[in-house]
């Protein structure tokens, strides 16, 4: 058996602000047709007695044109418990300043801050309110880049597991969190929504915060999902990255169609353009990954989904759909550190269009 030393809180506190700050990487590639896109994504599991998930996404879109440099910030706040609720708010640069290299961002009454080794999220939206402190228990990954061709690409860093304390108000119910588990990633790049691109993305954190294992997986492909551009699956134990599976070591399968009624959709008016229930979300997702010494198996069963519609950058009369899918996941297998078998309610994202 291999023994890995978990990263100390001091190392995490030093690393995160150096790696996870806003890039704001506007350059010659940044045009009205190909804007620079960047977002920070946070997921938080709700307690076992009130199962559900919270998603907070802060995104910034920047473009350069003869008229000058334009920046738009958006806050997407969504939660699934007995049903979905959520909202999207947009902010002008004046009300949501972003400083390259910094994590902190204010969005009206809401904010993301990095303080004393933890993210502090303050969310004041029409749909929900929250005040959370999210403490990473691992180092962030190094930035990974996937080329989409033509100078376009997506980069990201992941903090797979954070311990979360605080509260969330959903309607008239306050949910208090103590050592809940969360997930965070930060993505950026020059690419065009609707430009022959799809992805599947997800993570598995255990129900029990004392269980030390976490898994994250992603596949980026062409829009028809015939050609995989990149895929990876990563495993952590006590905050240390144990193994990374890549490309041909991984097989992903999507089965069935997740049905049900027309999903909750943001922005609301997009429902009028997507009146059906179809979404491209499978009923089941499975992953199998093998290396010389390690094995990983993931199964995900979709329970409920919500859609976030994004205008296509390619076709002015099409939308790209981010399917935020709540479901039950299990990850099990073996590594040089030991065997694992974790399960819990989690989120997957299926991007289609």
């Amino acid at each position: 058996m291999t023994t890995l030393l978990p990263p100390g809180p001091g190392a995490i506190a030093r690393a995160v602000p150096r790696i996870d700050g806003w890039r704001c990487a506007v350059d010659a590639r940044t045009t009205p047709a190909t804007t620079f896109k960047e977002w920070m994504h946070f997921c938080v599991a709700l307690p076992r007695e009130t199962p559900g998930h919270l998603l907070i996404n802060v995104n910034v879109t920047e473009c350069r044109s003869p008229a000058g440099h334009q920046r738009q910030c958006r806050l997407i706040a969504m939660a699934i418990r007995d049903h979905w609720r959520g909202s999207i708010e947009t902010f002008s640069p004046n009300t949501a300043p972003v400083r390259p290299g910094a994590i902190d961002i204010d969005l009206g009454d809401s904010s993301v801050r990095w303080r004393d080794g933890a993210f502090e999220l303050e969310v004041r939206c029409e749909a929900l309110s929250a005040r959370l402190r999210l403490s990473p228990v691992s180092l962030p990954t190094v930035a990974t880049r996937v080329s989409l061709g033509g100078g376009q690409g997506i980069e990201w860093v992941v903090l797979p597991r954070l311990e979360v304390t605080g509260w969330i108000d959903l309607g008239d119910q306050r949910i208090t969190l103590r050592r809940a588990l969360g997930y965070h990633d930060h993505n950026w790049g020059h690419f065009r929504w609707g430009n022959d691109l799809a992805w599947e993305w997800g993570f598995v954190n255990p129900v029990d915060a004392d269980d030390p294992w976490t898994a994250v997986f992603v596949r980026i492909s062409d829009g028809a999902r015939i050609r995989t551009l990149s895929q990876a699956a990563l495993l952590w134990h006590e905050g240390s990255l144990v193994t990374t599976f890549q490309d041909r070591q991984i097989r992903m399968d999507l089965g069935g169609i997740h049905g049900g009624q027309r999903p909750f959709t943001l922005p609301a008016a997009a429902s009028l353009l997507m009146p059906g229930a179809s979404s491209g979300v499978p009923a089941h997702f499975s992953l199998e990954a093998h290396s010389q010494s390690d094995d990983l198996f993931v199964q995900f069963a979709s329970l409920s989904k919500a859609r976030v519609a994004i205008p296509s950058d390619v076709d002015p009369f099409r939308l790209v759909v981010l399917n935020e899918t709540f479901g039950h996941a299990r990850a099990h297998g073996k590594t040089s550190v030991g065997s694992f078998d974790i399960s819990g309610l989690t989120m997957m994202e299926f991007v289609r269009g």
Partner: protein
Amino acid sequence: MDSGGQSLSTQLEDALAIVAREAPLHFARMRRQVGELTALIRVGEAPPMKLLFTEGPPWVRPGATGSVEVSLSRADLARLLRGELTIDEGIVSGAVQVRSQVDHLLRWFDGLASWLHGALRSPSLPALHHQFFSTGQTTPVRPKGNLTC
């Protein structure tokens, strides 16, 4: 004209003007698709609003007849704008009543889809969307974030 109806008419005109200004490609396609057809929209007890795009602005005027006539309650209009009801569901359930030749109705649906794609790309429209749901419909746009429609 009651204040509610006048406000709704003004808001509809504003919504059209915003898309005309911020998503001109979409607005132009909508005008081409709708052509000379008119729509008469009745929302609750408010005075009917007639939409005509061969001239204007204003594109919203008082009227009594239209190539397509649509009636619905203010509550059901709100459900449509909140994404809780689709037009198809509204027609099937009777919440949205439509009187039209089928080909005219389909042209208006195509025009509406073009306008909606423009609306989703218009930075100023979320504020108007929020204003619709504000008490009295005349609440000023809130200065912080705006809900995206």
